[in-house]
């Protein structure tokens, strides 16, 4: 179980021309990802989802709040002492082309973390070779052909599998996949997603999926939770299928309305929501962060910030004064 409470992160920008300014990347985010479970963060670029993923993986500091891994509170530990805890959480990057050292064979890439592990646990050298072959098989690669190769000799899909295999060498409890398939060829994407899903089921590794594509988030873990993040705030949170089928926050509705409709196979939703203007991060922080773009804003929205809570409008948490269900997503033709 990995939980976070009230995570706050501010980036300070220094600029000669525009002047120094502070960007609130995260404004008090709570999350909880159960062991073996799944969670997805969705939102536009700049919403803070990647920053949150990096904080969870221990690669970024945070200004306030608490991360608890298992039952250990991270802030009570010294940085050095935190390392073994954060090792349980492995980050899979978006870009498998730059995540692997081009001058190392796949064997060398896997050997380094495995030999460290072997030394720590007093295992023999032969274990390293066995385990290297094992993790490659786990991710659906043939060790015999892949081990001796360099990254440039592999396709994007295979490289991403190698990256996942490398993450598995340290027996992680959670994989944080940040847009892990967006640079992979379309026909190979589902294979990588299926692999992550499979690792969850077979190894009990929990998966945190960070994406702007809601459908892929659903594919990885329809039993997990979906967090919709907007300008550093979680604006809607609940079981994946509930949030997709019955979103009540206008921002979630905008995101879902924006998904291309496969005309001929699907019928578009009847009440699509389109934001009034595009995202401008220099907008004032007063009131609801989405108010300026929201077609349904009321007077209260510009002066007061709604907090994430469950109301009568919906069973999932939402941060909106005027939550309302709207039919926004496309439905298959066969269903109607």
């Amino acid at each position: 179980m990995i939980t976070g409470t009230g995570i706050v992160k501010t980036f300070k920008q220094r600029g000669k021309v525009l002047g120094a300014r502070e960007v609130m990347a995260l404004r008090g985010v709570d999350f909880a990802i159960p062991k073996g479970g799944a969670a997805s963060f969705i939102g536009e670029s700049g919403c803070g989802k990647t920053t949150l993923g990096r904080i969870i993986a221990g690669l970024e500091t945070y200004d306030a709040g608490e991360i608890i891994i298992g039952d250990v509170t991270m802030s009570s530990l010294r940085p050095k002492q935190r390392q073994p805890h954060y090792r349980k959480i492995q980050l899979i990057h978006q870009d498998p082309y730059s995540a692997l050292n081009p001058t190392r064979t796949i064997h060398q890439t896997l050997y380094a973390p495995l030999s460290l592990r072997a030394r720590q646990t007093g295992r023999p050298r032969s274990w390293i070779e066995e385990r290297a072959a094992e993790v490659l098989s786990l991710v659906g690669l043939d060790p015999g052909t892949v081990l001796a190769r360099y990254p440039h000799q592999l396709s994007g899909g295979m490289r991403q599998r190698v990256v996942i295999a490398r993450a598995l060498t340290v027996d992680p409890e959670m994989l944080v996949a940040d847009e892990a398939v967006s640079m992979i060829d379309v026909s190979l994407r589902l294979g990588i997603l299926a692999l992550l899903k499979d690792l969850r089921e077979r190894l009990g590794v929990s998966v945190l999926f960070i994406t702007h594509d809601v459908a892929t988030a659903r594919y990885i873990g329809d039993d997990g939770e979906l967090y919709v993040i907007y300008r550093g705030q979680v604006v809607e949170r609940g079981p994946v299928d509930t949030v997709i089928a019955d979103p009540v926050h206008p921002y979630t509705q905008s995101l879902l309305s924006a998904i291309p409709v496969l005309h001929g196979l699907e019928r578009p939703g009847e009440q699509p929501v389109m934001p009034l203007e595009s995202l401008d991060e220099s907008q004032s922080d007063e009131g609801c962060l989405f108010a300026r773009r929201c077609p349904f804003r009321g007077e209260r929205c510009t002066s007061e910030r709604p907090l994430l809570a469950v109301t009568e409008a919906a069973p999932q948490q939402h941060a909106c004064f005027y939550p309302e269900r709207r039919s926004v997503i496309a439905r298959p033709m066969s269903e109607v």
Partner: protein
Amino acid sequence: MSERSEVTIKQSTAAREAAAPPRKEAPGVRISGLTVVYKTPAGELPAVRDVSLTLEPGSITGIVGESGSGKSTLALSLLNAVQPPGRISTGSVEIDGLGDVVGFRGERLRKARGQHIGYVFQAAQNSLNPLKTVGKQLLDLGRSHGVDDLRGLVREAKELLGRMGLDGARVLDSHQHELSGGMRQRVGIMLALVLNAHLVVLDEPTTALDMITQANILKIVREVHAERGLTTLVITHDIGVVAEVADRLAVMYGGRLVEQGPTRQVLAAPRHPYTRGLIKAIPRLVGDIDEAQALPGRPPTLVTVPKEGCVFRERCALRMDVCDTVDPQARVDEGAYGPRIVACHAVTVKERA
């Protein structure tokens, strides 16, 4: 600051003038038997092989393909802009009012680009000059194409940007870094259209954009297409993008066009096993999650693509003996909404039976 005032003065003067741009008609395009080869250590290998495709005047055609399918090379051929080590080896690209651009060279070719054919490059958001304001780049574009009425050009640009929901004056005074990804993409579209081109090629217009921005850009593409009377070609790896904007859908694989037809028909009832696999591999928002199935194998590269026979056979569930040796010919079925074309032995056999 001097640049800023220069552009502003030109705009305000231009706003008073009202010379309408000469109307041009949306051109039709006929690509026939086009083969584009790249020189490699293993000899000249085809990135696009014997492709025939017609863009009807006023239509939006979407080409879907994975990386290495040859879709960008095909699009560049429309401009006769394939760069060495690549070259168009055979075939023709007939554009109404221009002729076969494959034979164009030098000044004639340069004039055709921009004035007749607008191209929005892949990652248009990064293709602007970071040192110059958008307005300066616009003026450069005008001068290099011998536009006499630069004020008119600025007015036209402002109008186009305004049409796309941007503050034209502000954008023209901005440097690239002051614009968001979606805004830069719209600047790319503006630059492609401002010389009054009526054939527009958009290469991956929404890659690297957010969902909401993507939806916005696609809406703009549709509207501008209709308002200005364009013939539009959209190149993408994302079937969803094509589904949103295109009248006709063409699917490319291993340098070959394997299927084409009216978008809705192809999506509702894909015929080629590759098209079927692609559509099946899209995770959906509703329904059974496990309905989404991955396509086995991986796409071929320039070197691994089969020299003879069907390019898709390695990944195909319907593979037959004939697929190894004989290249499937395109079979055309005329329909009420336009022809449906598929190149697959298995489909042909099944329909004859």
